[in-house]
């Protein structure tokens, strides 16, 4: 969506435009290519990691050391995505590296090589994975107590399968500063993907290494000194990241007034436009259906949050209470009013311990009194399995009010008369054999239950559950070990399958950045840098001025 002339006049500036390529690993895989082709962006961010995605990826990596990253990334890069990134000069920032960012980055370099983009530089950000040093951390004062249940790891006793700390925006900004074209990370907080881009584009990262700040310094200290409200600016950027990290969900997807949304089939992805007065606008790609308005954006602002006074990220704690969202024009809303408070002392860790065995199955039941027939089926199955100890069976009568609370459902069931019910069981047990016994008892109900039972399939297989383990860790236990590596290759010959990686290593994200900059004669990118000036008369940032500088 082009910014209209009048806006440019008012703001005297073109915004930084950051697109979101999707909402999770499993979202429409080719949608990022459409957005890259239809719109002009400075950056594309993609959050591929839900709370438990890393546990799944860690399991995959154990089976195959080259896996454990978001494979959707390869699908769209290979389908014209890498070419579009290069041609349109868009920098990609994603946490799709998951449990194995280095292997993911190698895949990205291979994609770049295939289209002849030999100078492509891919940064790998790691150090979020604390599993290898879990014992050390536990011996040195980290408790890693489950922050919902209060349980300690030793109380639980189960094997920890994965443990990843949420990194912030600093490493991303540093990687951009040393010239990365594509940034592949492990667990970086969703909104920090965007904040990292802005720390770079707004010149904060440049300022940080000019000042010689250490990697432990909070990103708020990176702000040039004429900026009077750096926490609020970080808060605005964080909210922009939060608003677009779920992809099309802010463009009319999952919207209460879904029947007002034009063409759900071709829903486009969102774009955040960030202005130097810290205004944030949310708009969407031009290539398809969907819409952006204040009600839709409000639904996304409030999505998966707790106390709105303290939306916690590694970079800043945001007070959302006085954020306002206003329609500006068709498909453009303005978001203002986020207030920032200093970064938290601890980082969140998403961990997982091994849980019990699990399976689920369902049957379709029809006829007069379908609900009563389903109940009879359920009672028969439970009786046939009653000899098994330590088997938990959970039954849902879908069509019988399962999406209402239990007490409401019970009041309604006597008067409900659905034409059919999907009878669904989910079972769990510490004993795998119990789950197998359950899977053997489902299909027989077709011949040995009430009439009108169908929809059975093959026996399902027992699978292991992972138990989510959210906890906290001190920043110092993580941030000093964050690693940025820049991968590129020089002398690729078409007939050679060998890649020569030049690897630039920094332990931490600021301390040796200056050295990195001195060393990199092979990269002289023109990066869009933005200058800030302060208008003292009104004591706020009003002079968005753009200049191209060569770094």
């Amino acid at each position, binding site marked *: 969506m082009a910014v209209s002339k009048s806006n440019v006049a008012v703001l005297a500036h073109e915004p930084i435009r950051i697109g979101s390529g999707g909402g999770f690993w499993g979202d429409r895989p080719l949608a990022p290519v459409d957005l890259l082709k239809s719109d002009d962006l400075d950056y594309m961010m993609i959050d591929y990691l839900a709370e438990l995605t890393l546990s799944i990826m860690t399991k995959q990596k154990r089976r195959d050391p080259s896996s454990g990253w978001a494979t959707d990334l390869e699908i769209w890069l290979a389908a014209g995505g890498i070419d579009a990134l290069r041609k349109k000069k868009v920098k990609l920032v994603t946490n799709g590296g998951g449990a194995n960012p280095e292997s993911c980055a190698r895949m990205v370099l291979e994609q770049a090589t295939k289209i002849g983009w030999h100078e492509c530089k891919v940064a790998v950000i790691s150090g979020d994975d604390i599993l290898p040093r879990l014992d050390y951390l536990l011996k040195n004062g980290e408790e890693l107590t489950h922050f919902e249940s209060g349980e300690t790891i030793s109380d639980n006793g189960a094997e920890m399968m994965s443990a990843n700390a949420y990194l912030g925006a600093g490493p991303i900004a540093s990687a951009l500063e040393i010239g990365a074209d594509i940034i592949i990370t492990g667990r970086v907080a969703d909104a920090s993907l965007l904040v990292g881009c802005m720390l770079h584009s707004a010149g904060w990262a440049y300022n940080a290494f000019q000042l010689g700040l250490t990697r432990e310094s909070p990103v708020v200290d990176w702000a040039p000194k004429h900026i009077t409200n750096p926490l609020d600016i970080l808060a605005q950027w964080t909210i922009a990241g939060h608003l677009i990290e779920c992809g099309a969900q802010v463009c009319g997807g999952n919207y209460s007034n879904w029947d007002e949304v034009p063409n759900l089939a071709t829903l486009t992805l969102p774009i955040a436009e960030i202005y130097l007065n810290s205004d944030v606008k949310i708009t969407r790609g031009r290539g398809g259906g969907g819409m952006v308005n204040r009600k839709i954006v409000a639904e996304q602002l409030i999505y998966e949050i707790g106390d709105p006074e303290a939306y916690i990220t590694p970079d800043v704690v945001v007070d959302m209470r006085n954020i306002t969202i206003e329609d500006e024009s068709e498909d453009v809303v303005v978001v203002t009013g986020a207030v920032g408070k200093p970064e938290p002392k601890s980082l969140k860790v998403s961990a997982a311990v091994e849980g019990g065995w699990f399976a689920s199955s369902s049957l379709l039941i029809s006829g007069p009194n379908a609900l009563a027939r389903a109940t009879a089926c359920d009672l028969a199955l439970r009786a046939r399995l009653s000899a098994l100890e330590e088997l938990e069976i*959970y039954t849902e009568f879908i069509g019988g009010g399962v999406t209402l609370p239990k007490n409401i459902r019970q009041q309604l069931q006597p008067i409900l008369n659905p034409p059919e019910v999907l009878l669904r069981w989910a079972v*769990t047990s510490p004993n795998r054999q119990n789950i197998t016994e359950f899977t053997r008892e489902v299909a027989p109900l077709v011949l040995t239950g009430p009439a009108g039972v169908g929809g059975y399939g093959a026996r399902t297989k027992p699978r292991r559950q992972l138990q989510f383990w959210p906890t906290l860790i001190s920043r110092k236990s993580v941030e000093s070990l964050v690693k940025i590596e820049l991968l590129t290759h020089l002398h690729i010959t078409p007939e050679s399958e060998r890649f020569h990686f030049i690897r630039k290593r920094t332990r931490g994200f600021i301390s040796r950045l200056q050295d990195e900059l001195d060393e990199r004669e092979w990269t002289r990118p023109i990066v869009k840098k933005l200058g800030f000036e302060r208008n003292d008369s009104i004591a706020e940032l009003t002079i968005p001025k753009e200049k191209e500088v060569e770094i």
Partner: protein
Amino acid sequence: MSEIVWIPLSDLAHGRSGDKGDSFNIGLIAHEKKWLEILEVSVTPKLLGEWYGDSVTGLISVWSMPGIGAINCLLRGGLGGGATTSLMLDAQGKIWGQSVLRMRVPVNRKHATELGVSLNNQSENQWDMSHLI
């Protein structure tokens, strides 16, 4: 005529929900920003507790977000252990933000009329389920 009438929440607000471990949040946004004052008084932790009964086992919090005319409700212990270990089909609590819109909430008849809230679906009984059938 009673001062208080019960209307479906959908006549007052729209919403979205999602999971946080074993908790889920429901964001409720007033259709008109000026209706927030009604929403704040009507949708209390106590009312949500009555609607959810033992489907939610932990504390319920409600916070206001005056900037967008919304309240955020956090319901702890409602997902059967959370997304990875829950036995519920909707283990992420995605449906609750729409399902709760069918809950009846109390409004002051005169105040609601003044602010233009539709009372077409009003009832004098909190547990009138006729609009659910």
